[in-house]
């Protein structure tokens, strides 16, 4: 990897610190090769899964003879199967992601998370794809395990720039329809769209049994509106203008933000989304580390 080429999206120190960690899926994945993730199917691993009554056609070699001798009943002994996963990193590339007043630009932040996770997934043998949405699909890179594929992803991320209005809702629906096989979906967005419609998307993804996580990026200024003079706010996506005095509307603004965040948080919980609120003045490696650790603890608890 050429460090100078991807220095904006990748940090070698961060990768080194995270190298000992593993990204676990929260639910069984359907892969095409043997991997580190649980599969919904029975396989030949050493890990016992369950007993099942023998039915005609089953391989007699799988009969548990000890149970037959003890109980005179026919049971098949099944084992877990391990497989790899396919992960789709979805990045919102609408113009609103270019905002970064107090912290870094949200889109830059999103690129770093996406690049780091992609790197880790490929290195743990999983396939990574990249979906970049603006008001349509800006880039669609299907998942691959090949390290060379990683370069393609990095190049795409490095070359992407926010533009247009957000089409996240519509594109997520299409994406959920398009990806029929269960997969890990990591969405990185500021989610500035209709909350109810967004939650419909999450329901859709949940219905498709995808393990999806949402990195909800917010600039610190968007959370406190710490401005003191009358401001002519210009919408970054539609260029609409609104003249307002932050001192006067701050309270109502914060209430609206709070209401929105609560709603989106509860929606994520409802649809089993892994919700991550990220303020862009936080170090992104810490965000990723927390994300990995929680999933690892979950995996251990399950095991």
């Amino acid at each position, binding site marked *: 990897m050429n460090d100078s080429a991807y220095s904006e999206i990748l940090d070698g120190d961060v990768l080194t610190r995270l190298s000992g960690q593993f990204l676990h899926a*929260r*639910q*069984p994945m359907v892969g095409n090769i043997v991997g580190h993730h649980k599969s*919904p199917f029975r396989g030949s691993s050493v890990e016992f899964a369950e007993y099942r009554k023998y039915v005609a056609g089953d391989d007699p070699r799988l009969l548990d003879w000890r149970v037959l001798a003890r109980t005179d009943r026919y049971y098949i002994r099944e084992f877990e199967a391990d497989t790899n996963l396919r992960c789709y990193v979805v990045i919102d590339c609408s*113009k*609103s*992601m*270019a*905002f970064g*007043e107090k912290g870094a630009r*949200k889109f830059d932040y999103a690129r770093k998370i996406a690049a780091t996770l992609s790197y880790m997934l490929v290195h743990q043998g999983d396939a990574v794809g990249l979906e970049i949405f603006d008001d349509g699909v800006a880039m669609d890179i299907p998942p691959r395990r090949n390290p060379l594929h990683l370069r393609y992803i990095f190049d795409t991320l490095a070359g992407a720039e926010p533009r247009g209005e957000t089409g996240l809702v519509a594109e997520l629906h299409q994406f959920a329809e398009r990806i029929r096989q269960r997969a890990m979906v990591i969405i990185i967005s*500021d989610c*500035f769209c209709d909350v109810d419609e967004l939650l419909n998307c999450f329901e859709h993804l949940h219905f498709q*049994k995808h393990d999806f*996580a*949402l990195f909800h990026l917010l600039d*610190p200024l*968007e*959370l406190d509106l710490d401005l003191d*003079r*009358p*401001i*002519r*706010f*210009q919408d*970054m*996506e*539609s260029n*609409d203008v*609104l*003249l*307002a*005095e932050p001192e*006067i*509307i*701050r*309270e*109502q*603004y*914060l*209430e*609206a*933000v*709070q209401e929105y*965040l609560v709603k989106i*948080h509860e929606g*994520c*919980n409802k649809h*089993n*989304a*892994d*919700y*991550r*609120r990220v*303020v862009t003045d*936080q170090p992104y490696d810490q965000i990723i580390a*927390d994300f990995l650790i*929680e*999933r690892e603890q*979950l995996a251990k608890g399950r095991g």
Partner: protein
Amino acid sequence: MTFLQPFMLWGLLLGLLPILIHLFNRLRHRKLPWAAMMFLRMANRKSTKYAKVRQWLVLLFRMLAVLALVFALSRPEAGGFLKGMISGKPDVILIIVDRSASMGASEGEKTRLDRALEVIMDSSKKFGDEVRYVVMEHTDKRPREVKGGVSALPNVIGKGVTDTAADIPTLLEAAAEWFAETKPGIGEIWVASDLQSSNWDPAAEKRWRRLSGKIEGLPQSVRVRLMALDEEMPANVSVRLLEAARQRTADQVELMLKLEFTRGSALPVELDLAVQVEGQNKSATVTMEGATHEHELRFPLQQYAQSGWGRVELLDQEDGNARDNLAYFVYGEPIQAKTAVVGVPERFATRFLNLAAAPDPANTNQVSTVIAHTAVSQETWADYAMVLWQAPLPTGEEADRLTEYAKAGGLVVCFPEDASDNNTFNGLSWGELKRFEQDGKTFDNWQAMVAAEEEQEHLGFRITSYSDDEGPLQRTQEGLYLPVDDLRVNQRKAIQGDGMVQASFEDGVPWLMSKTVGKGQVIFCGTQPTDAWSSVTEGLVLVPMLQRLLVEGEAMLSGRYVQGHLRVAGVDRTRVGERWISEEGGENSAKDINLEAGVYRMGQRVVAVNRPQHEDVLISMDKDQVKELFGDVSLTLFQESTADVESDDDRELWKAFLVIMALALLVEGILILPKGADERVEIQRSATGKVSTEQAT
């Protein structure tokens, strides 16, 4: 409501400042690309009602605070309805102290002034040092700030009674002007006075109306408190010098002192006097009858050729006011009793008058000069004690000059001419010449008339009525009558005019008429001193008459000297740089010629200073009269309410406006106060979802 600093009301325009700042802030907005517009739109929609109302309220209270501050700086005063609602201490008290002679009246040891100062001190202690004190005494009418509060008051107010008179209206005018110029805030004028009528001049109604209007029209509230020390005055007698003149008698020169005594009672009383003349103390006793009594004292002068001074002191141990028991006088050096006889020098009448005016110039101070009628324009009449006018009555400039002489105290005696004279002099003129006739027969002179008389017969115009108790024809000191009845008048001219008839003929036609002109007199005598006219040429009537008039003229001349050397304390003030030394106290005396009666010397000049005449008139006004004088001005008598400090007069409202400003700022602060921690919307910076496993089905 009135304002002490009305120009500050221009500052009300500053009330627009919060709105201007608000608008200016809106204009200087900056542009900011923004992502989370959906929340801004929601917030904007929500905030339109309450937030805008709050914003306008904040602006309103900011404006209110500015306006209240401007109002406070304009120093408004409550009037009308608010008048009774607010009360408190005044900001300044201007104390007017009357130290006139009448304030020296005492019953016991304390004078009215002492008691006034006590009341002032007691009252001022109630106000304490928070109040400014300014003292104005009637002696200089100059407001003096009291530095050091109440305790310093006794050092600023003069303790002694003066021999001057107070002019209370002038003092009040000066006080009103001081309030108008300095605008010291709520004020009170304390007047310590004995309400002596002459000091208050209640007759000057227009002046008082102007004064009360001036006080009432002051931009700030000023009320008057009157310390009226008008209680019953103890029995008091005052002595006043009316006249002091050197007079010549037959064998000596005397000092004539004309004194006036005044007292409250009309009962006869004996007064003992101590008179100092030529350095010697002499005593005299006067029996006083009536409330006022004039008395003439005569003392022979030993040192003829010198001027001198002295004093008259009333000796009465129980007198109510020791201040008015003294009268000082000065008298001048001897003067020549000069008479001017105007007429034709060669004529008998002229020569006769010349002789009658100065019968023995070698042995007396009487001198007479004949002046031709045509040469009078060069003459200075003021040098003469008497002018005898045996010529046609003066007209034009001559008449004016002679009238001026008479007004200044001169004496002019006119005699008729043979020829008809239609001129008028000071309202008096000659009638037609009338000769005595008997049975159609006339006489050439009075001697012929006497020769024609039979026994017991008295021919000629007979003078039957004349004043023998006063005037030039009065009896002699021995009580003898002048032989006016025996005069034989062959010719006469009637005297026309409105003078006082001193003597008249049988038929009522005046023979001798006098008219007072200014300080002097003009006298017309109806006959000429020639034999053809009457027997006055015998001299038995005319000579003593002229001598008496001459003494009177001499006294007037002497009096003119005295007049220039008699001063009134507080009225005839010294010029800057003059240093007058008390003759009684000498170089080290602290007596002030402008304040105290006495005899003072500056170089060779000696003057006597006495109290103003009206200071001895002890008529006091009552309180109701004083209240009328002040009209609508708030007037309180100390006697009525010395403790009534918290009265219902006008007050300044600046403190109230400061409170309003503070309240407005407080409300504004509450409105813009950020919400408390428990009410504030706190957004968690980090949140994670419910991380759970879901078994694949």
